């Protein structure tokens, strides 16, 4: 195990930021700590780094208990949310910093430092910027320089705090894939913090979903998406329709044939692509109509409303490929029949 956390708890005043976190991260993984703001994900990352002390629990890096070690002895690379580049130093000096502050015995010579810094600059494809100052760089460039600086000390783990949070949408897309490829190349165990589920799904090999200071679920992106183990994870990852199988609701869902399975709980979560939509000509049999639809690229999202329900909460979302939608030839206001192909049940 590259990183092991045992019974980590942290309290800020009366607020419990982390509550008995246990986590094993194998060597070479790229892990996303995912959760809404205030769930404790950044605090957890800072505890792993040693920038914050846990009230209880132990942190192991490569099998060594580093709980009482200060950050400078932990051999971690940390990329800060706003990069924290040294603004009075050139890009070159920023990256060389970690090598130049080493104790005299371990410190490489200036020639070696130069080679190493240029190699890192080539890795992040920014060698031509070596004599610039951080203020003269764009957000994406700063981010990559911050990464190169963190990698200069050959860290055993790489920790990134909201690495794409401060970037433009288009730059963010490119950098996500770039980070994933870079990780493949370097294979250094990495953890990044994010509140964006799409980002986590796209970049990470493992996702740890946090909520209220606890781990809700840990798994690969497809495990998290296809087998959510809690109501929270199901709602947080991707879009979900929530049906409460109680009272009137149950009657309605059954009478219209929407739910075919026997209920396995009190709440059904249904992904939009797990709802089949068919056009009906006989309006008396259907109580659902197409309110609106949006083009999402490869798929069409349908907004379906029930008769007599106008609140936003009562809208059912379904998704289908473009061609299927074209074949159905639906128009706004058309009556439709629904069928749920697959649901996740929670109590």
């Amino acid at each position, binding site marked *: 195990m590259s990183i092991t956390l045992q019974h980590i708890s942290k309290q800020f005043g009366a607020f419990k930021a982390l509550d008995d976190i246990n986590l094993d991260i194998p060597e070479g993984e790229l892990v996303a700590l995912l959760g809404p703001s205030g769930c404790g994900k950044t605090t957890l990352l800072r505890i792993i780094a040693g920038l914050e002390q846990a009230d209880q629990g132990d942190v192991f890096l490569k099998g060594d208990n580093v709980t009482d070690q200060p*950050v400078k002895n932990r051999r971690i690379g940390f990329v*800060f*949310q706003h990069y924290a580049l040294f*603004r009075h130093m050139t890009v070159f000096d920023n990256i060389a910093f970690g090598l130049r*502050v080493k104790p005299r015995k371990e410190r490489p010579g200036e020639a070696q430092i130069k080679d190493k810094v240029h190699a890192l600059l080539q890795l992040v494809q920014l060698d031509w910027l070596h004599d610039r*100052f951080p203020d003269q760089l764009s957000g994406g460039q700063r981010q990559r320089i911050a990464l190169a*600086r963190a990698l200069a*000390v050959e860290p055993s783990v790489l920790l990134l705090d909201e690495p794409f949070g401060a970037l433009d949408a288009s730059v963010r897309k490119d950098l996500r894939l770039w980070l994933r490829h870079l990780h493949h190349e370097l294979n250094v165990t990495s953890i990044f913090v994010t509140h964006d589920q799409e980002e986590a799904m796209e970049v990470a090999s493992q996702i740890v979903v946090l909520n209220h200071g606890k781990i809700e679920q840990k798994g690969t992106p497809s495990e998290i998406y296809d087998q959510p183990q809690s109501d929270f994870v199901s709602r947080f990852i991707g879009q979900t329709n929530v049906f409460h199988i109680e009272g009137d609701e149950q009657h309605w869902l059954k009478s219209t044939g929407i739910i075919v399975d026997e209920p396995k709980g009190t709440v059904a979560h249904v992904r939009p692509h797990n709802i089949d939509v068919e056009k009906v000509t006989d309006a008396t049999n259907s109580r659902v109509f197409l309110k609106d639809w949006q083009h999402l690229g490869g798929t069409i999202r349908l907004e379906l409303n029930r008769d007599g329900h106008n609140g936003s909460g009562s809208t059912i979302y379904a998704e289908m490929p473009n061609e299927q939608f074209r074949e159905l030839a639906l128009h706004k206001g058309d009556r439709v029949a629904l069928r749920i192909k697959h649901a996740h049940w929670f109590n």
Partner: protein
Amino acid sequence: MPQSHIMPGFRPALGFTLFYLALIVLIPLSAMLLKTLQLSLDQFWEILTSRRVLTSFRVSFGAALIAAGIAAVLGSVIAWCLVRYPFPGKKIFDALIDLPFALPTAVAGIVLATIYEPKGWIGKWVMDAIGVQIAYKPLGIVFALIFIGLPFVVRTIEPVLQEFDSAMEEAAASLGANRWQAFTNIILPNILPAAITGFALAFARGVGEYGSVIFIAGNMPYVSEVVPLLIITKLEQYDYAGATAIGLIMLLLSFVLLLMINGLQWWMRRRNGQL
């Protein structure tokens, strides 16, 4: 001139600025120059090279430089303490920093003289302990000028420290730097320009300081007489041209020194990529 700004009023604002600059700064300074021109070049040279004038320049500029240097270091520590650490009474302490700005300088001078004179509270103790007399010596002038200059330094460094991104320190630590390395490599270069500004302000103020100095200086010619006092002395002897001649040279020297300090700052900013 075509209208190139969104906000109107460039011309009235510039006119207003130039008018008051002339009224308050340029005309009085020109008058000084004119008065000096009543002297012949020989007379002018004789006044400037007299031993009394030369020593007073040395005392004024020397004491101001030393005091500004000490104030820069002390002020940096105080600003650091005020920004970085919470402690009880911090707000009151913070307000006390500005006191030398508000206090009549003569009051400050009398108080300092009373305390640091050989029989005063602290002066007596220092005299007994290490045999050094503070008041009525050039050392007393330095003490008074530190008192006057300190708030300039604290108030210029404080905002810079407040804005300092502490993630930079954390980044330095995560890269393996110890506290000392983080301080010398990261924090110091970031606050140095502000410290130099504070130093320049304290120095400029110290060179011309009169009120607080004359009470503690002892005002012995050739030893602890400052330039402003010498100017007053000349005025009292109705030697107006002599007084303005000294004033003019003081003005020029201060101007050159401040220009050098500004140049130093410009060079540092440029080296740090802030220009």
